[in-house]
């Protein structure tokens, strides 16, 4: 049997044994961890780095998101980091020398009520002041851009208009991860899979070693990029952060002809949908209400999501659901990430991206690498420090971005 199979294609990265010590240990081999490794090497020449992954590279949320990329956030702090990311996305294929199928097909964020309209127009103005492309469109213009949206006033939540960011888009998430991994590996960074962190060796206010299922590894600095499992790591360190892990589900239809030219998001009825390059309709649902680490969610969440999607897009009624899956998202009280210092001087936190971490991947990687290289938060990350929950300087993106990112 085996001799009938074709040769395995070339591997994009090595499978090294962990060394005894690294200058930087990144915990979590998802998009954020791999991007941080890439920029540590590329921008700062720091290559004595290990990325530790308890499963396989980019097998968590990086493989489970709906691949939406946009930067039309309300607050200046969010706009800065997400727009920085979007600009990096625009040159990422060249930077990585690897195809990522980045397609800037624009995003429509629908408004369904008077307050929705006011909030949306406000966000358009805020985006423009931050140099981010944004327009307000009426229902007719929405229908012109995306003819399959039901803009009739006969539905439960009629479409009153939408914000439009033309530069938003989608990318193939696996290729993005593989591109970052290949680049980091080529620079000499060790990507170590099947290596779960089980504890930390501390000395005063420093972490001197990381205990793993593949032995103890000494470290100069540690960056925690573990998304939904961040609380599990912080519990090992005795650090408390306002994070709650929830299941978040997504789904795809069978392959269809091109019917959906853009991205449509509706926070009110909880639909976000685009059509992948291959032809599947890709849709995201809302989080399950309860805390969960199971990488699966309840079916009634999918059912509710489908009901809303079919009303907004009547043409979907005859599409078949091909598969659903779940990831674990770490949600913060203000729907903004937590990045920066921890009580340990050489440990940096990167978590709380909740339902929207994918789009930030290159921006976060760039800024976290800079943070590690200079041992202080990059200016774009400074507003997202853990201590904002004490000072009260929250970055409240609930109203602006709502739960769907």
């Amino acid at each position, binding site marked *: 049997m085996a001799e009938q199979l074709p040769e395995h294609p070339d591997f994009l990265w090595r499978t090294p044994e962990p060394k005894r010590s690294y200058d930087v240990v990144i915990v979590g081999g998802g998009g954020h961890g791999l991007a941080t490794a890439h920029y540590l090497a590329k921008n700062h020449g720091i290559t004595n780095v290990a990325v530790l992954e308890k499963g396989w590279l980019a097998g968590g949320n990086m493989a489970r998101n709906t691949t939406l990329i946009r930067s039309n956030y309300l607050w200046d702090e969010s706009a800065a980091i997400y727009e920085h990311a979007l600009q990096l996305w625009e040159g990422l294929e060249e930077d990585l020398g690897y195809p990522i199928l980045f397609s800037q097909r624009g995003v429509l964020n629908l408004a369904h009520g008077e307050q929705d309209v006011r909030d949306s127009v406000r966000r358009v103005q805020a985006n423009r002041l931050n140099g981010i492309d944004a327009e307000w469109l009426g229902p007719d213009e929405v229908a012109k851009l995306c003819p399959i949206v039901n803009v009739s006033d006969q539905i439960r939540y009629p479409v009153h208009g939408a914000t439009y960011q033309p530069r938003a888009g989608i990318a193939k998430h696996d290729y993005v991860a593989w591109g970052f991994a290949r680049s980091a590996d080529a620079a000499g960074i060790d990507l170590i899979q099947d290596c779960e962190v089980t504890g930390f060796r501390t000395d005063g206010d420093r972490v001197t070693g990381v205990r793993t299922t593949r032995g103890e590894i000494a470290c100069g600095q540690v960056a925690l990029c573990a998304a939904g499992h961040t*609380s599990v790591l912080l*519990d090992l360190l005795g650090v*408390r952060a*306002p994070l709650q*892990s929830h299941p978040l589900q997504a789904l795809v239809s069978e392959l269809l002809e091109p019917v959906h030219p853009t991205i449509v998001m509706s926070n009110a009825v909880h639909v976000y949908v685009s059509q992948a390059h291959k032809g599947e309709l890709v849709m995201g649902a809302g989080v399950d209400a309860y805390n969960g680490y*199971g990488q699966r969610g309840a*079916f*009634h969440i999918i059912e509710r999501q489908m009901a809303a999607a079919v009303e907004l897009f009547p043409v979907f009624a005859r599409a078949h659901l091909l598969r659903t899956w779940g990831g674990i998202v770490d949600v913060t009280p203000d729907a903004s990430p937590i990045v920066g210092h921890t009580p340990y001087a050489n440990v940096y936190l990167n978590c709380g991206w909740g339902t929207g971490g994918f789009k930030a991947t290159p921006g976060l990687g760039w800024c976290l690498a800079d943070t590690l290289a200079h041992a202080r938060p990059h200016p774009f990350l400074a507003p997202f420090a853990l201590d904002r929950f*004490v000072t009260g300087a929250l970055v409240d993106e609930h109203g602006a971005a709502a739960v769907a990112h």
Partner: protein
Amino acid sequence: MQLIRCPWCGPREEVEFHYGGQAGVAYPADPAALSDEDWARYVFVRDNPKGRFEERWSHAAGCRRWFTAVRDTATYRFER
């Protein structure tokens, strides 16, 4: 659909319930004495374990009473 056991109504479908998060979070006994750090902890920080978790649920579409249940956050299984 997962069945959740309401202590008063018995097993009912999950959609009838409302989740209330971590159980046993008491209102501060002396609020005026709290530091900013203490307030942040009380308002924002909750446990987030992978595994056994004591939490509040309300049978919102039934008897509307609150109860405490123990659930495993990795398997989603209720202990009782």
